[in-house]
Structure formats: C-alpha cells, structure tokens
C-alpha cells in the first residue's frame, strides 16, 4: 500500500513541472523546489527530533552553513556543484561534530538552549563576516554548475535535481531507520539509561545521528543558496530553526514523511494566505494550534494507526 502511494506521489512530482509549464504557471515550479528543499531540511531535523528525541533548536545553523559554503566558494570562483555541494555537506558535518559533541552532553531544556546558542553564535559570525556581505548577505553570480550539459538556472532542471536529491535522501533514511542504527536511535529516545545498561555507548550513537542530520541540513542549505541565488545570515536566524521545528511537528514527529508534509503544508499556507492578507501569520498560527490540539501526532499521525517512528 505504502509502495503504491509512494509511486503515485513520485509520478505526480515528476509530472508537476511539465503540467505547470503547459498551464503557464512557471512560478509554481520554483515554489515547489523551495518546498522540497525545506522538506529536506525538516526531514533532517525530524531524524534527530522525532527518531532520536533530541530537540535541537539550532538546526538552521547547518542550513546556513551549507548555504554559505556554496556562496563563499562561488565568490571565490568555484561554481562546480560537484565540489561545492559535497563541501557544504562536509563542512556542515564538521560543525555538527563540534556542536553535537558539546551539546549532547546536556539534556532536555539545556540541550534546546545550547543548540540555540550555537546557532546564534553562527548567526553573528556571518553577520560580522564583512568580506562576504555581512548582514546584507551575499549574491551568487549563478547557480552551481552540475555539468552533463544541464543548466541549473533553468527552473525545471533545478526542480528535477532537487526532487532527485530529496527522493534519494528519503529512500536512504527509510533504510536507515529500519536498520540496526535506526533501532538504536529510537530506543535511546525511549529509554536512554537502559540503553547504557544493556551495553550501548549512547552518546556516540546520538552524535552520529546528529552529524547525519547536520550534513543533510547542509545539503539543503547548498540547495537553498542555489534556489535564491543569495545567502544571508537570515538563514541562520532562530526563527528559521523555529520554522523547521514547526514543519516537523506539523507534519508528524517521528514519521519518515513528517518533514515533507510539514514543509508542504506550512509553505503552501504561507503562500496562499499571504496573498489575501498581510496578517497571514494569524491564520497560520491558528492552524498550527488546531493541529497541535487535535492531531498531536501531526498530520502524518492522522493517516497512520501506528505510533510514530514505529512504522514499518
């Protein structure tokens, strides 16, 4: 059943830009790319928040880090996606190692606060980085160059590249959460003390999970830099971490597709409501409230009889 549903969604996603183009609605192709990039970022947060129970309030740090790596390399004349994107992933992963190694020594509210402070530190580092635009941000000359005669400046090509990356990531994470590692992460969320007592070095596993999530957020950052042709410290602001959290909670904490659903719903809500009123945040807030109250498992939870992170 799930396989059929996945196939249908993939076919629809594949046909989407062609349909939009034939209906002369090219704007929505770029909008859909943005949704998918945020879906990737929210999914990476869901891995640590939903599966691992690590409530990180600084996830935008890695998003911004990935974006800045692409931006700075571009400013230095390195346009190749094959260099810049892996670099974005690698640098974000390194930051995740450092931030995780310290933050994961704390728990609960302290973990929330310390991840938030690291993200804020990163924010101010980029604000003070005058060589790369400081507070005003940095324009990218072009989109990254992926070769093969493909041009990412074409929104449809970019859409398909983002779709491919998102689908591959979700496929990989599907394997991960059903493999030994996923079980360990889930069990740590459920009962960390007992995990230590049956012989798991929980800190190490949590750190690995945190780094994977950071690296994926870095990849999303590399894509968002391309999407906007622009990077700025705004990407790292705490509100950005907040949005990622809202997407995750809205979509379904601990459901593989929670981040995707959450990003789609939140961005579509923002997009449609903001065309009616400048006070669009009010109805968005009310919707969030309704979901938290009536569907505490998120939207994915409404369609699943299984408890989160236990789906097969």
């Amino acid at each position: 059943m799930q396989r059929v549903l996945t196939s249908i969604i993939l076919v629809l996603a594949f046909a989407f830009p062609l349909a939009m183009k034939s209906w002369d609605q090219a704007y929505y192709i770029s909008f859909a790319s943005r949704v998918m990039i945020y879906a990737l970022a929210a999914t990476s947060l869901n891995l640590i928040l939903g599966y691992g129970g690590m409530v990180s309030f600084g996830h935008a740090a890695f998003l911004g880090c990935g974006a800045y790596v692409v931006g700075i390399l571009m400013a230095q004349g390195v346009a190749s996606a094959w260099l810049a994107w892996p670099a974005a992933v690698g640098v974000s992963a390194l930051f995740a190692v450092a931030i995780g190694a310290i933050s994961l020594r704390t728990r609960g509210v302290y973990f929330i606060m310390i991840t938030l402070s690291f993200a804020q530190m990163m924010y101010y580092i980029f604000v003070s980085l005058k060589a790369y635009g400081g507070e005003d941000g940095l324009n990218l000359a072009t989109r990254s160059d992926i070769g093969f005669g493909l041009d990412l400046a074409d929104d449809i090509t970019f859409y398909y590249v983002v779709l491919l990356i998102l689908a591959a990531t979700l496929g990989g994470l599907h394997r991960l959460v059903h493999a030994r590692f996923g079980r360990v992460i889930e069990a740590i969320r459920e009962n960390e003390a007992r995990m230590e007592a049956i012989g798991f070095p929980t800190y190490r596993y949590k750190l690995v999970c945190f780094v994977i999530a950071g690296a994926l957020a870095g990849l999303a950052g590399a894509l968002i830099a391309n999407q906007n042709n622009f990077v700025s410290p705004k990407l790292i602001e705490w509100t950005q971490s907040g949005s990622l959290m809202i997407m995750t909670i809205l979509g379904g904490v601990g459901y593989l597709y929670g981040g995707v659903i959450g990003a789609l719903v939140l961005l579509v809500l923002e997009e449609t409501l903001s065309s009616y009123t400048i006070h669009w945040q009010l109805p968005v807030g009310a919707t969030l409230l309704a979901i938290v109250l009536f569907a505490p498992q998120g939207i994915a939870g409404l369609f699943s009889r299984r408890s989160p992170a236990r789906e097969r």
Partner: protein
Amino acid sequence: MATDDVTLDVDAGEIHALIGPNGAGKTTLIAQLAGALRPDTGTIRFDGSNVTATPQHARVRLGLARSYQITSIFRSFPVLDNIALALQARSGTSLSFWRPLASETALFDEARRLVAKIGLQDREHVAAVELAHGEQRQLEVGLALATLPKLLLLDEPMSGLAPEESAHMIAMIEGLKGTVTILLVEHDMDAVFRLADRISVLVSGRVIATGIPDAIRKNAEVKRAYLGDEATV
C-alpha cells in the same frame, strides 16, 4: 543514600544476596558496580581487571549487567524486540545503516530462545507497556540476562510481585544458578533464603556480616540491625 567502604567478594557461580534496611545503600552499590555512578574512592575489580573508570556500557561488554528495582524497559517495543535489542548490543556493530534489522533472523531466533527462557514466549509480540506487572518484571530481568553477563546484578527483582508471581521469578532465578554469577538485592526474605548461597548484610553503607544463610539467620548483630522478627522463616 551512600556506600561507605564496602568490601564485597562475590564468588563465581554463586548467588550472593545483599540485604539490608531501606536506605542502607543497596541500590547505590548496584549503580556503582554497574557503572552508572562513580565511587569517590576505592576500586571496583571485575574478573581480574580494574573497572573503576570503565563506563557502564563497556562494563556490560565485559559481562557485568544490572536490572532495575523500578522497571526500566522499552515500553513501546514488543517483548521480542526488547530482547533482540539487548542481543544487538553485543553482536557486531550497530553502525549499520542499510540492512533491515528485520532480516537478521539469527538475532531474532536467539531472542526467541531467550524470551522462552524468561517465560514470555506467548507474549512475544505484545508491546512491553501492555504486559502485566509480573511479566514486565520478567522482561526487566530478561533484558539484563540477554546481555549474557558473567555477573548479573539483580536489584529487587521481586519488587511489587504477587506471591505466585514471586514464585515464578524465584524459579526463573533458580534456573540460572551455576550458569551466571548473581548478586541479588532483595527484601523478600523467603526468596533470599531460598536462593542465596551466601548473604551479605548492608547497614548504613557498611557490610556488617557475610556468610551462608544459616549463619546470617543466627547472627546477633544482623538480627538487631535488620532481620528482627522477619528472621523467623
């Protein structure tokens, strides 16, 4: 609670019971032996090596595992998955990101054997949270047992059990005799005197007596400090 200069020798293969009044430091001692708490001074030697600075998870790999007085299981996981998880800890790496866990038949076959050993074979697929209290206590001990310990630290396995459940647990622990060394902390004196090869008495963080059950029963100091009327078993 604290422990004060405890010296305790547990011989291989025996069931060594540790008794004492509430607040004597029994659970603290278990936590120190297991590695969840670091002692301020003193050393803990296990199987000939000094493990005082060894973290808990590494001690488990050396064969030192504990159970909890307050049930600590993976509540949303089925019984079988609880046990398989403990087996997973000591069989190969868990930094495995691709191969589905469900395809590891050897792991689950062994888990099934262990589930039968703790008497929950009919409840394999029931989530741990749905089990009766007595069954949860069996799973609690089973999790520690599944790490294949050389020394098993059991912290009040009978706690909160009805008489027939206690009898079941006593039989289960009796069945382990000889295959694993057990340090048993227990308030249920029936269980202690039935199971223990030797007994140590902990009062205010100090061991005031160690000996075979008969000697402990007759020990005047122990009677005064703890056993009192309960000793007439």
